[in-house]
């Protein structure tokens, strides 16, 4: 072996610096380079071609706006601004910001990403309306919080506006990095959005200490989803009644009922594909969404309804007077126990699932009878290329509980009907204006305009890829919202592409959840919220995999929380917590 290779080496060496390139080698290398170049060229060419052509999505609604311009006065702010009053019914007065640029940071996704799509869709229209420039900067999802915070803390100040998750609000407010928008809201020159059109939980995410720090937009909530075809199957209904002694609940009103349904539909072939299906599926991976899904279950056992936010009512995470963690009180513990019970009726692998595989399992494969998840599921279910359940979806508000843990009396308080905890919010993505924004007025105009009714309706129906969930008054057809909504069901079907029954079921569920619940889960947005939630997430996961009992896991979580609160200064944290939950203020769930 050595002699042979040695000889070969000698041959190569004889060539010396005259690189002895065999023709075959040269050709093969050249071919590889050529192929790569061709591929790159094709990609570039195709990309260029498509980039050149319109990037707007196919569905566009063109509105003709007739504006009679009457220059009433010229108000000099930081830039000369022309105020016009319009005698038509257009609710948006025109105001221009010549030469201004607003830089918006949002989650990455391009023209069809869940949040970036909205900005790309409206970019041209807004720019034409205000004569300002909109600069969109996308940030990978996992790093949004970090980048916005770094930009603010270091003073780099590149971002003017950011669409953030509510957990980030605490850090930003406390550090003084965002400005309140109350004054802008009163200013008649800017597009009007009605704070009363927004569900109470969403409002509370966006306010701090009574002040508005952002313009609400998304209302992402978790709802219960289940299969219409299974629930309406008379054979299955009969079997269920036989086994459990009561009618198949439609919708399930408590988590115990959900557990029965999940158990009933688990482990046999109910869709005729030859393989057994599962009762439910869920995304329980640590570091992803598991804690949201847990809170959705635990909230109804833990949050006591009441007219105002006081020590024993309408709080979940901490005791507002003592800042003691409440995460290991019997309410949350029972929630975790229920979650563990439920997790037995789905595929084992879901302990490692992020939302992608879970949605795929429910919507694309259709192998789970029920789940509870974000408002994106119905939209995904309408896509014929990705869904086998279009027209087979039923939605309901999250189940409740007949018993809620009463900390005042230290026992379970029984009710004669299930108490529903209004909503567990996701990130409730909304726009904030950063302190370093160069033109705050233009920035506010953008935020307010995007949340004006016309834009909002398009946002949840027309825009392809939009991940914004409904919850505003404009989204609900009046027939599904006790006459309060100002939306239009027909448009959901024709423009949004929804199946009629799916749309009805979903919108009714959203309305009931937001506006007909007994209380709601307050959103933790104090500084340090990410750390607190991370601890909860990790400990829940430990209980799910069986490493700890629910009580042990939540006790450990409470210990962590205590430590974190101490480290950050208990008194300070208490003050912030009280501010963030609107301590002492009345809650107003019913729409006005």
């Amino acid at each position, binding site marked *: 072996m050595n002699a042979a290779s040695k000889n070969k080496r000698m041959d190569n060496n004889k060539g010396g610096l005259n690189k002895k390139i065999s023709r075959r080698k040269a050709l093969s290398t050249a071919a590889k380079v050529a192929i790569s170049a061709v591929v790159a060229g094709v990609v570039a060419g195709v990309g260029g071609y498509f980039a050149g052509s319109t990037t707007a999505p196919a569905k566009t609604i063109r509105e003709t706006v007739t504006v009679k311009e009457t220059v009433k006065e010229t108000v000099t702010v930081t830039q000369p601004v022309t105020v016009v009053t319009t005698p038509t019914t257009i609710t948006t007065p025109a105001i221009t910001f010549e030469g201004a640029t607003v830089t918006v940071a949002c989650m990455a996704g391009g023209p069809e990403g869940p949040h970036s799509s909205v900005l790309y869709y409206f970019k041209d229209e807004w720019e034409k309306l205000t004569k300002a420039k909109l600069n969109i900067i996308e940030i990978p999802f996992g790093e949004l919080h970090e980048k916005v*915070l770094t930009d603010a803390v270091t003073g780099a100040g590149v971002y003017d506006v950011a669409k953030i998750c509510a957990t980030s609000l605490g*850090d930003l407010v406390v550090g003084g990095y965002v400005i309140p928008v109350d004054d802008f809201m009163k200013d008649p020159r800017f597009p009007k959005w009605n704070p009363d059109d927004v569900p109470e939980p969403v409002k509370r995410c966006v306010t701090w200490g009574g002040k508005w720090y952002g313009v609400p937009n998304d209302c992402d909530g978790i709802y219960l989803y289940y299969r219409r075809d299974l629930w309406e199957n008379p054979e299955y209904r009969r079997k269920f009644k036989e086994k459990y002694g009561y009618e198949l609940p439609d919708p399930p009103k408590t988590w115990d009922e959900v557990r029965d349904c999940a158990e009933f539909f688990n482990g046999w072939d109910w869709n005729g594909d030859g393989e057994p299906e599962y009762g439910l599926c869920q995304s329980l991976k640590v570091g*992803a969404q598991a804690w949201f899904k847990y809170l959705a279950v635990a909230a109804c056992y833990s949050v006591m309804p009441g007219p105002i936010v006081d020590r024993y009512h309408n709080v979940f995470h901490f005791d507002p007077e003592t800042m003691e963690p409440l995460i290991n009180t019997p309410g949350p513990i029972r929630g975790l126990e229920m979650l563990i019970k439920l997790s037995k009726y789905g595929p084992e*692998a879901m302990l490692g699932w*992020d939302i992608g595989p879970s949605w795929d399992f429910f919507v694309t494969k259709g192998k789970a009878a029920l789940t509870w998840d974000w408002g994106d599921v119905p939209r995904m279910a309408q896509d014929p290329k990705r869904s086998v359940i279009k027209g087979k979806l039923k939605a309901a508000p999250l189940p409740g509980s007949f018993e809620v843990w009463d900390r005042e009396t230290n026992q379970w308080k029984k009710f004669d009907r299930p108490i529903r905890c209004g909503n567990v919010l996701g990130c409730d993505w909304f726009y904030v204006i950063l302190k370093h924004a160069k033109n705050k007025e233009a920035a506010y105009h953008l935020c307010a305009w995007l949340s004006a009714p016309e834009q909002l309706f398009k946002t949840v129906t027309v825009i392809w890829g939009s991940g914004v969930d409904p919850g505003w008054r404009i989204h609900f057809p009046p027939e599904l919202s006790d006459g309060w909504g100002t939306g239009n069901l027909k448009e959901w079907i024709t423009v949004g592409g929804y199946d009629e029954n799916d749309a009805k079921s979903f919108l009714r569920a959203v309305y009931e959840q937001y506006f007909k619940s007994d209380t709601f889960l307050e959103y933790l947005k104090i500084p340090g919220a990410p*750390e607190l939630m991370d601890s909860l997430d990790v400990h829940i*996961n430990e209980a799910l995999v069986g490493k700890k009992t629910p009580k042990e896991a939540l006790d450990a979580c409470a210990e962590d929380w205590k430590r974190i609160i101490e480290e950050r200064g208990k008194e300070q944290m208490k003050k912030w917590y009280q501010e963030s939950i609107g301590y002492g203020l009345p809650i107003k769930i019913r729409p006005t």
Partner: protein
Amino acid sequence: MPKEERIKYFFLLPAVVLILSFLIFPLVYSLYLSVTDWQIGKAPEIIGISNYLKALTDGRVHNALSFTLLFMIFTISVETPFALGVAILSQLRFPGNNIFRVIFTAPFFTSPIALSYLSITIFYEEGGPLNNILKLLFGIKVPWISNPNYAFLSLCLIDIWQWTPFLYIIFLAGLESLPREPYEAATIDGASGFQAFRYITIPLLMPVIITGVLLKMIESLKVFDIIYALTGGGPGIATESYTMYIYKTGFRFFRLGYAAALSYILLIMLMILFTFLAFRLRKVYYE
């Protein structure tokens, strides 16, 4: 030879100066941060070594360290012989050798972030390719992600896939640069291929092997990207690496002080480890 004395600085200094000028400030700044408690809304306040003391009792630190160390040992033990074997085989001039080299090197060019996401689909338990093949061949379904032990194995597999080429490239370069004379002498003396390998290749290649292994060890102690998307540190915190915990602490929770302290602890530990190893290997390595 005074001229030669001076020229060595010409060779060495550009690199050193560049590194120092950019790293001095971060190193000092990090050290400063590590003794402070910096929270949003307040100026950093100096709290002495309490960050370091806290790390000593932080259970999550212990967990992260033990995972990281196990990970490092396991992956190195597999990658080194694997890379060495393939490097030696690569020296044989068999047809397709060049293509093979490129193919085998390619994994190293994969973005770890992309790899992590891609692995979600590959290791997907309910119907990913791995479990599919395993089901066909052996009828089993492996819980690659939802079980702590298998999650560890999945991560090791990914690391081995990606980093063996790293060692492979280094070993290959080393092998190619070996002098030919000893081999010729050995052939004349009638030694077999295996003996030549054992008595010539290994000793001559040892410095390169050691460098490669040390470098890879250091890298694996900083493993982060592949874990980030695939397991997120889970189940629970079973696969949370040390650097991942630093990242979470520093960026998610924005506790830059504590994160800096954790980084320095890693630095100190590695210094100790390295000095210890280098002392043992001095004879082989440092002449």
